[in-house]
């Protein structure tokens, strides 16, 4: 049995290192001794069958769960942050990890634009000196607000939401809500962007636009992306690095091409004996030649 664990990109230092991560809920082991590394300027995809523990990994990374065992190290500007010891909001604020949610969580009564301004809360809060500078309208706060507006505008253009900036977030169509959630995460100025199934529910056109957006975030912004995704066409097309989970364990880890030919992965997705009877569309989905 080969277990791929051989991804070592040149010139891209490690950004996020997960070591021996284990998460138990009572008797249930959701993640079992998982180790992997996400690199700078890389799109790392975390894939696996339903219930493999992918979202649980995200929740551990972003402080919603405290892992039972393990260490999660995030590098930012030469400093190491141990995420498993930090409160959720500090992980975003200090370590620069931003995330989206599987079932979109927007501030739905607020406008699209407000969503992006709120995301720059910490920066603006410092500038407003606990609201005092803000209440008095000091220049220091005004210039910070201007910058925040510019950043928000940048991401509105980037995600094609500029025209709808003053609409309530809840009035956007589904695909636009997904993009807004990504824009909101980017407005926190992260080093690592964690996306939980961003392509779920998108049509092929939207899915293609999403690919472009993610590639641009990686290449133009130089930000690491960690991605949970079921849509293999997205995964295979844009990721640089794929980590495969099954029942909370890592079963494969490598470049997309290597992973998709790994027998462990094929087995996990299709079961032991069914390789031969593979329906063509599923085979295409996992990237196998029938």
């Amino acid at each position, binding site marked *: 049995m080969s277990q791929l664990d051989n991804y070592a990109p040149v010139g891209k230092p490690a950004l996020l290192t997960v070591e021996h991560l284990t998460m138990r*809920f009572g008797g249930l082991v959701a993640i079992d001794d998982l180790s992997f590394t996400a690199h700078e300027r890389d799109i790392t995809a975390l894939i696996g069958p339903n219930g493999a523990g992918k*979202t649980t990994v*995200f*929740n551990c990374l972003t402080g*919603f769960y405290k892992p039972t065992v393990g260490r999660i190290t995030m590098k930012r500007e030469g400093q190491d942050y141990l995420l498993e010891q930090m409160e959720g909001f500090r992980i975003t604020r200090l370590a620069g990890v931003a995330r989206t*949610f599987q079932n979109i969580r927007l501030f739905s009564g607020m406008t699209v634009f407000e969503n992006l301004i709120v995301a720059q809360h910490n920066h603006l809060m410092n500038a407003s000196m606990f609201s005092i500078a803000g209440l008095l309208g000091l220049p220091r706060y005004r210039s910070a607000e201007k910058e925040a507006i510019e950043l928000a505008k940048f991401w509105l253009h980037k995600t094609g939401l500029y025209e709808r900036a003053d609409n309530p977030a809840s009035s956007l169509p589904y695909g636009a809500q997904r993009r807004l959630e990504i824009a909101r995460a980017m407005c926190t100025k992260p080093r690592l962007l964690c996306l939980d199934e961003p392509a779920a529910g998108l049509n092929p056109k939207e899915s293609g636009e999403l690919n472009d957006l993610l590639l641009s975030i990686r290449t133009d912004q130089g930000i690491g992306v960690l991605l949970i995704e079921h849509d293999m066409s997205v995964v295979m097309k844009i990721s640089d690095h794929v980590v495969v989970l099954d029942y909370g364990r890592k079963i494969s880890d490598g470049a997309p091409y290597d992973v998709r030919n790994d027998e462990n992965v094929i087995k996990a997705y299709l079961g032991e004996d069914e390789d031969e009877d593979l329906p063509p569309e599923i085979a295409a989905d996992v990237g196998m030649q029938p």
Partner: protein
Amino acid sequence: MMDYFLQQLINGLTLGAVYGLIAIGYTMVYGIIGMINFAHGEIFMIGSFISLISFLILSSIGAFSAVFAILIVLLVTMIFTAVFGWSVERIAYRPLRDSFKLAPLISAIGMSIFLQSFVQVFQGARPKPLQPIMHGGIKLLEHDGFAVQISYLQIIIILLTVGLMIGFTAVIQQTPLGRSQRACEQDRTMAALLGVNVDRTISLTFVMGAALAAVAGLMFTLYYGVIDFFIGFLAGVKAFTAAVLGGIGSLPGAMLGGVLIGLIEAFWSAYFSIAYKDVAVFMVLVLVLIFRPTGLLGRPEVEKV
């Protein structure tokens, strides 16, 4: 010393039985629709008024044996109060099940104020006394002129509560209704898909909760001999504290919490200060919610993201 302690223990248990019965209503409703039924204390208060009125009517008709009178009043009170429980859910909660998160809470508070004021307007604000229905008791101990006594009334209250608890647990565990209830607690959508009549199940939960609160109201009327339109507020908060202390959502927890709160109140009044007995109970509520929000027998909630 020991006698005094024993006497307080008996008093506390009696009080605890009353709180426990109300607490079950909170815990069941919370279990099934995940909201605090703020109006539940008022349902209890209405139960106590209906029982008072029934007693007065019975005594004006003529002589009944005390036990027989209590049984009749019990039945009448449970039925009428249950209709109140049903109506409250139907009017104030059901239409708001999918509304924004503060709406059902505010509606419940409005309902509570409404019911309290309703009784005040139509029954008057003065305290309502009731002549004792039942006298006497059993002397358990006598020592230096201090007797530890358990009154017949206390015996009836405790026995009735234990009986109701047993019957009730059987209903939840063994009948189709109980199964539907547990199904709705787990996942309302799925239960509906599998053919459980969710609306009816929730209605019946309110009806059962109200019927138990009615029993508690009856006991309160008999035990204290005086009621007013305001008793639902304090009793409601205390019973809610009991439900949280026991672990909200857990039936045995509600009963355990009720008994503990009854004992805390009795002993606090006896040994510390009667003026601050309510403060003591409120402090318990605050401390439990801060340090152990799942209560003694509750299951921890895992936050889903």
